[in-house]
């Protein structure tokens, strides 16, 4: 029963929020803006899936926002040079793999703490972008926005790709060896090693996977507008980590489901629109995000306290 308690709580909170909005601000549910809002959250959802895997394996990656910006800019440069859409997507994911692999090597094989490694790579990518693009926006060629489809079809495509990722990852975490390895390494790396799992390879794999998903999220972000900003990923790391933690992923590793992450993201994503519907000024956004993270870890800590060790 207590296994899915967090997921149920978050689902309840989300339901309550949606109900309040339905009663007091019914135009929240006008179809077109509702779909648009949902679509704009999908890159964060894909990134949150990645960060959930990282946190379950008891690491952290705060460079994902900078990774997403990097991938988006590299992909748009590739698109500008005339590559077809498929190649652009592969380029973006390839760039993500390289950046994830760098984090992975430093954390898994050199043995550095992931927080410092990803803090340093975050700054390195941000500064590279600043040096390279000087804050310029890049215009995208025809046929990239909404994958060259109509807007409605494009939005459907973005949402269905993202949900497919969530479902596939949730299935893989339960049924594939790598998924079980991630849980095992996250709950006790030494025990996992004695059980014949190589924690270093698992950790490395998780960071590479994070890079792939950051590259994919960059594409999903890219196709939503006619131009790209070099800082499009700023703040993504906090949003994704918050979604994962709120969704019940234990920050000490080894515990959490991707369904929780999905619910957590939807809850957080609807807090801000709800605030604007109730006329709270938008500059409270960051403070409330921080508060939600703290409340979620607090719930985690209190929950852990009650359970016998």
């Amino acid at each position: 029963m207590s296994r899915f308690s967090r997921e149920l709580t978050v689902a309840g909170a989300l339901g309550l929020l949606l109900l309040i909005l339905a009663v007091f601000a019914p135009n929240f549910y006008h179809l077109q803006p509702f779909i648009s809002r949902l679509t704009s959250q999908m890159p964060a959802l894909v990134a949150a899936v990645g960060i959930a895997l990282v946190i379950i394996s008891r690491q952290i990656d705060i460079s994902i926002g900078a990774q997403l910006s990097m991938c988006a800019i590299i992909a748009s440069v590739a698109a500008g040079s005339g590559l077809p859409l498929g190649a652009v997507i592969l380029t973006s994911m390839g760039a993500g793999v390289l950046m994830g692999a760098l984090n992975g090597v430093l954390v898994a094989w050199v043995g550095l703490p992931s927080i410092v490694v990803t803090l340093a790579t975050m700054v390195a990518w941000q500064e590279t972008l600043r040096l390279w693009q000087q804050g310029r926006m890049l215009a995208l060629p025809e046929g990239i926005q909404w994958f060259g489809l109509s807007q409605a079809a494009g939005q459907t495509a973005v949402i269905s790709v993202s949900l497919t990722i969530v479902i596939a990852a949730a299935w893989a975490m339960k049924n594939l060896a790598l998924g079980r390895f991630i849980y095992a390494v996250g709950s006790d790396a030494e025990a996992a090693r004695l059980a014949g799992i190589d924690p270093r390879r698992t950790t490395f794999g998780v960071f590479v996977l994070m890079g792939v998903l950051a590259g994919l999220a960059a594409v999903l972000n890219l196709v939503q507008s006619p131009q790209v900003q070099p800082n499009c990923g700023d703040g993504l790391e906090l949003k994704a980590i918050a979604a994962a933690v709120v969704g019940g992923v234990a920050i000490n590793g080894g515990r959490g489901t991707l369904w929780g992450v999905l619910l957590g993201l939807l809850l957080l994503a609807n807090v801000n629109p709800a605030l604007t519907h109730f006329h709270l000024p938008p500059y409270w956004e960051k403070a409330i995000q921080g508060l939600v993270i703290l409340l979620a870890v607090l719930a985690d800590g209190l929950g852990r306290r009650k359970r016998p060790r």
Partner: protein
Amino acid sequence: MVLLLVIVLEVILFNSLGRRFLSGGNISNVFRHSVEIGLLALAMTPVILTGGIDLSVGSMMGLSAVLFGMMVNSFGVDPWLAGLAAIGFGALGGGLNALLITRLNLPPLIVTLGTFSLFRGLAEALTKGAESYSAFPKSFLALGNSDVAGLPAQIWVFLMVAAGIWLLVHRTTFGRSFRAIGYSAEGACYAGIPVARNTSLAYIIAGAVAGLAAVILVARLGEARANAGIGYELLAVTAVVLGGVSIFGGSGTVSGTLLGWVSLAMLNNGLTRISDYRIMDQTVASVARELSGLLTGLLLLAALAIGAWTKNLATRRARGQSHPENPPRSSPP
């Protein structure tokens, strides 16, 4: 030792490449502009010694700066009194971190990531995202812009804080306990050290010093804004780690942190002074200035990698075996 060498090399290199690097004016400039980061690095040292980290110090600076500016400009509080209050607010913020970390056993990383967002967000909310405060009396601005006895005024404050932290870390039982906790929190607990209380102290000091750094920054810039101190936490962590403090906790010295800070400050200042050379149409100076952030990140990674590598070598030699174990975790039990 290595760091001293790095500093000497930096001085020689920048002095031969740039103009007037070694002039008295520039040297005092180097220190005037990096006092805030130095303060944060000093404050971060006890925290990292206990095996924790505080990512919220930069945001705490922003919040303290805004509260300070508000008190002075909107409520007419005396700036020195408001400065003390800003330090108090910093200590309160540090206390919040300490409460969550030590009483509820939450990982410092996530707690301070949350307060990192919370403090900055509060600062932005209080200023409605755009307002800033800039009406400060001249006598207060002198703290940031004048010289006292031949040195920038804020250097004297910095030296006092440095002496205080040095005494705390190296000459008191608190300091010993920080290292004991960082080495093994459980062991420290069995040795009768009040782990929660002493760890709390480290975070509260970090918050208070961040508040002080905010006041000094406002005095230097003459303006209090919500974006004060963005990115400073990284620079502070870099200085501490460069100075040889183990990021896993348990070992390190205050003098190491100071050396790390000096080498970092000189790197940033020296890069902006190389101006006689040209690469690809741009003066090296403009490239170098933009490179300094990137170089800071790379420097941090290199320092960490070298640290981990020598540690690996040492344990391998001590054990006399060829297969090193996984290093200890950074998060406390």
